[in-house]
């Protein structure tokens, strides 16, 4: 079923919230909390979805509001996708036009670099 999501703290002042397996309205509150804690602590956020096989619009809402909050607070925010990202994830981002609205990078390293660009803690 849904694997456990985790949070990694990087040295660049970016927390990596990793979505593993399937995430939907049953886990979106947890993801929202993880993103919110990072931003409240003044750290930037990467949501690593390279191992995410599935998300629904409840998760999408959390990603969007996370990006908005990060922009308000002035910390970086980026999404990492990869070759193992599920089709449903890419399809939902594309259908809703969010693949253009969110900052999306290929792989965690590139996403952390993108988020760090916008992050005062790393400047």
């Amino acid at each position: 079923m849904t694997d456990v999501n985790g949070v990694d703290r990087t040295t660049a002042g970016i927390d990596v919230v990793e979505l593993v397996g399937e995430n939907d309205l049953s886990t979106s509150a947890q993801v929202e909390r993880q993103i919110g804690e990072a931003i409240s602590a003044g750290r930037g956020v990467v949501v690593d979805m390279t191992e995410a096989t599935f998300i629904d619009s409840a998760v999408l809402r959390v990603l969007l509001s996370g990006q908005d909050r990060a922009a308000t607070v002035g910390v970086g925010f980026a999404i990492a996708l990869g070759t193992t990202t599920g089709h449903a994830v890419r399809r939902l981002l594309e259908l809703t036009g969010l693949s253009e609205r969110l900052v999306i990078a290929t792989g965690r390293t590139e996403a952390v670099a993108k988020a760090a660009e916008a992050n005062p803690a790393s400047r």
Partner: protein
Amino acid sequence: MATDRQGFEIRVAAAAENVPLVRHALRAYLETVPMPEDRVAEVVLAVTEACANVVVHAYPDADGDLQVAADLDGDVVEVRVRDNGRGITPRVDSPGLGVGLPVMAAIADSIELGKANGSGTEVRMTFAVRDTASHPGSDSATLST
């Protein structure tokens, strides 16, 4: 080759933690029909959105059931998501992103919303088993990153 009118049915309490169960059961069913893997993922997404709406909107003050049924009829899978809740009620203060119904409509070949017997809502979606021309672009999910 799959026989026509193979059926699938599941009924659970309308709670967020049950939506993954419904999804996994439906996915297992869809793996028995000749549908491309990426299309199965899309169908499962559309049905998850319908189930999420039952959990979030159908029963504001009470418990209730979430029922999902699917059938293969010829080359078309029909999925029905049903509740006995208050019926579709527009909300200006929905906690959702507001893209559930349009996501379902964009993925399904057709979607019908009706009143379920007695009370509640039935969402009926159809999906061609083979990825024909009826939904251009659905097999070209090329998100360049």
